[in-house]
C-alpha cells in the first residue's frame, strides 16, 4: 500500500481511482479486526466486569466499588454451594442421558439414512426450537404433574396404583426438562462429529472383523469425541445456567446456578449474582481447558479432508 502511494506522484485523474483503492484496502484491513472488536465489546468486557462487580460491596439498591469477598463467602458457606454442586450432578446426569439417546440417533442418521435426506432429518430436530422455550417447558407440567398425562396413562394401563409425584417440582422434573430441551444439541454435535468418520471405515471394520463393541470404542468414539465433548459441555453449562427449567419444573433444593443468580437479583444482591456468574464462567473455562487438553477442540471445526 505504501509503495502504491509513493509510486504515483502526480496525475490528479489517476490518483482519484487510486485513493479509493487505498481506502478500500485500509477498510478491508480494519474489517478483519471487526469480529475481534465485537468479541471484546460483547464478551470480554462484560466478563471482566462480572468478575470486578463480584468483589463490590452490596448497598440497598445497587452496589459500590470495594474489594470484599463477602459475596463469595455468602456463596460458599451457605446452602447455595450445596445446591450448586447438586445441580452440577444432575446436569451431568442429563448429559449422560442425552448422550445415550442422542448419539445413537446421530450415528443412525449418518449411517442408515440416504445422504440427500440426512440434513432434512436433522432439520426436524430444529423444529421444536420454533416454539418459545417458556411455553415448551411449561407444557411439561400437565404432562408430568400428579394427574398428568404420564400418570393417568400408567394408571390406566395398570402399571402403577398411585400417581408418581416425583416427576415434577423435583430434580427428576428438572432432568426430564433438560433432556427434552437439550437432546437436539447432542444429535447435532454427534452428527457433525460423525463427519470426521471416513466413508469406508465401517466396511474396513467388516473386513477386519471388528466387533460392535470395539467398533464403538476404538473407532466411533475417538473420532467423534471432540464433537461429543463440545455438545456435552454445552448441555452441562446450560443445565447449570438456564434458570427457567428449575424455576418451572424444580422445587425446594432443585435449583441451579442460573436460578441462584436470578434469586439474588430479585433480592437486589447484585454482587452475589455476579459472583455466581463468575463461578460458572470459571467452571466452563475449566471444562473447556480439560477438553482441549484431551481432544484438541480446534479439530471440531476441521473435519478430516
Amino acid at each position: 500500500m505504501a509503495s502504491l502511494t509513493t509510486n504515483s506522484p502526480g496525475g490528479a485523474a489517476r490518483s482519484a481511482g487510486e485513493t479509493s483503492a487505498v481506502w478500500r484496502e485500509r477498510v478491508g484491513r480494519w474489517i478483519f479486526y471487526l469480529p475481534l472488536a465485537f468479541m471484546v465489546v460483547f464478551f470480554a468486557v462484560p466478563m471482566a466486569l462480572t468478575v470486578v462487580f463480584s468483589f463490590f460491596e452490596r448497598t440497598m439498591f445497587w452496589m459500590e466499588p470495594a474489594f470484599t469477598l463477602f459475596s463469595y463467602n455468602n456463596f460458599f458457606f451457605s446452602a447455595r454451594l450445596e445446591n450448586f454442586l447438586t445441580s452440577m450432578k444432575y446436569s451431568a446426569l442429563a448429559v449422560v442421558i442425552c448422550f445415550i439417546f442422542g448419539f445413537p440417533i446421530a450415528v443412525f442418521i449418518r449411517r442408515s439414512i440416504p445422504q440427500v435426506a440426512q440434513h432434512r432429518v436433522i432439520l426436524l430436530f430444529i423444529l421444536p426450537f420454533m416454539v418459545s422455550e417458556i411455553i415448551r417447558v411449561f407444557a411439561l407440567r400437565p404432562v408430568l404433574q400428579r394427574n398428568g398425562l404420564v400418570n393417568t396413562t400408567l394408571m390406566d394401563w395398570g402399571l402403577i396404583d398411585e400417581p408418581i409425584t416425583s416427576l415434577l417440582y423435583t430434580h427428576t422434573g428438572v432432568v426430564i426438562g433438560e433432556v427434552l430441551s437439550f437432546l437436539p444439541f447432542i444429535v447435532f454435535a454427534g452428527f457433525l462429529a460423525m463427519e470426521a468418520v471416513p466413508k469406508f471405515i465401517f466396511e474396513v471394520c467388516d473386513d477386519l472383523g471388528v466387533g460392535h463393541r470395539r467398533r464403538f470404542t476404538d473407532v466411533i468414539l475417538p473420532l467423534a469425541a471432540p464433537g461429543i465433548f463440545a455438545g456435552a459441555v454445552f448441555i452441562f453449562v446450560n443445565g447449570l445456567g438456564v434458570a427457567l427449567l428449575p424455576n418451572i419444573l424444580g422445587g425446594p433444593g432443585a435449583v441451579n446456578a442460573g436460578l441462584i443468580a436470578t434469586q439474588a437479583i430479585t433480592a437486589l444482591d447484585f454482587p452475589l449474582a455476579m459472583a455466581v456468574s463468575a463461578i460458572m464462567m470459571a467452571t466452563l473455562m475449566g471444562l473447556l481447558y480439560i477438553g482441549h487438553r484431551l481432544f484438541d477442540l480446534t479439530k471440531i471445526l476441521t473435519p478430516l479432508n
Partner: protein
Amino acid sequence: MSETTIATDKAPAVEVKNLSKHYGPVKALRNVDLTIAAGEYFVLLGPSGGGKTTLLRTIGGFHKPTEGQVLLHGRDMSHLPPDKRPTTMVFQAYALFPHMTVLQNVSYGLKVAGIDRKQAEEKAAAMMDVVGLSGFAERKPHELSGGQQQRVQLARALVLDRDILLLDEPLAALDAQLRKDMCLELKHLQEKVGITFIHVTHNQEEAMTVADRIALVADGNLVEHGKARDIYRAPVKKFTASFVGENNMLSGRVSDVNGVSCTVDVAGSQLVVQKRGQQVAHGQPVDLSIRSELVQLSRANGSNNAGDGHSILGSYDEAVYLGLTTSHLVRLPNGVEMTSRTISDAVDDLPTPGDPVRLHWQPEAIRLHTS
C-alpha cells in the same frame, strides 16, 4: 491332509457361478460366471455403473448375492461375512483410521484377530517395508500423500495373510503421473507376494499395465474375458472393441460368405474380414473394428475403383495433433468418421480438407463382431 492340500491348490481362487445381484429394481449383476486362478492378477474393466464394484464386493462378502454362488478356493462362501473369507479389500480412498498412526492402522487388524501387540507391530512393520512405507510408522494419515495413504491400505490388507486381495479403483484418487507409477508398483507387488489380486478400474491403460487377465463388465453383464493382450488385439465382442484401445467401429451387411472369411459391405466398399469362428449369414448386419494405428492413409490415385477388400475411400477431414501421434480424421461416404493414427510428423505432405483419400490396412488387422 495332503490330499486336501492338493485339492485346494488345484481349485481356482475365485469361482463365481450364475451370480445375480439386484438393488430393488436395479439389476447390478445378471447371471455372471467367472473363474479366477490362484496367483493371477485379474482386472475387472468397464464403464462406470457397469457393476464392477458390486461384483468385487459380492466376492468380498460385503454384499449377499441375490442369486448364484461365490466359491473361494473351491468352497461355497456366498453367505460368509468379509472377515471369514480369504479375501481382503483396498478401497478407493477414505478408508484409513484417521486417529491412528500408520503403524496402528496396519497392525489393527492383527490386534483384532487376537495377536499380541508386539508381534502384531513387528509383522506390520515388516509389511510396511514391503510396500515402501518404512520410516512413516508414526505419521497420521492426514500427514501422508494420496499415494502413501493407499500404500497404508495395501499394507493393512496384506498383513492379514489372506490370499485374495480385492482392489476397488485403488488409484482413482491419484493424479495421472502417480497413478502410472503406482500401477507398475502394484504389478511388482503382486509378483512379489504371489497372491491373487482382483483389481477394479474403468481406466484401460491401468488395466493393461497390471493385468494378466481382464474381464469386461458392462450393464451388469460379464461381456468378455481373456488375456490382457488378446483383449486388446483380438476382442470378440463389439463392446470390447469400442471400449478397449482406439478402435474404428464400422457397421455393414454381409454380402458374401466363403470358408474362413466373409465380405462385408460398408458404405459401398466391399471389405474382406476373417470370421474367427463366428457364424454369419448373407445379409446379416455385423460390426467391424480396426485399431486406428493400423489404418494407413494415402491419397486416392484418381481411379475410384472399389479396391482389394482391405481399403476404403473417404474424404479428408482434419488432423488432430496429439503430441506423439497425430490422428487423421476421414469421413466415409455414409458420414461415419474413421481415424488413422500415425507417429506425428511421419507424413509431411498432408492432404487438405475435402481431398479424396484411401484408408487401407493389413488383411488380418480388421475384425468381425457379430455381437
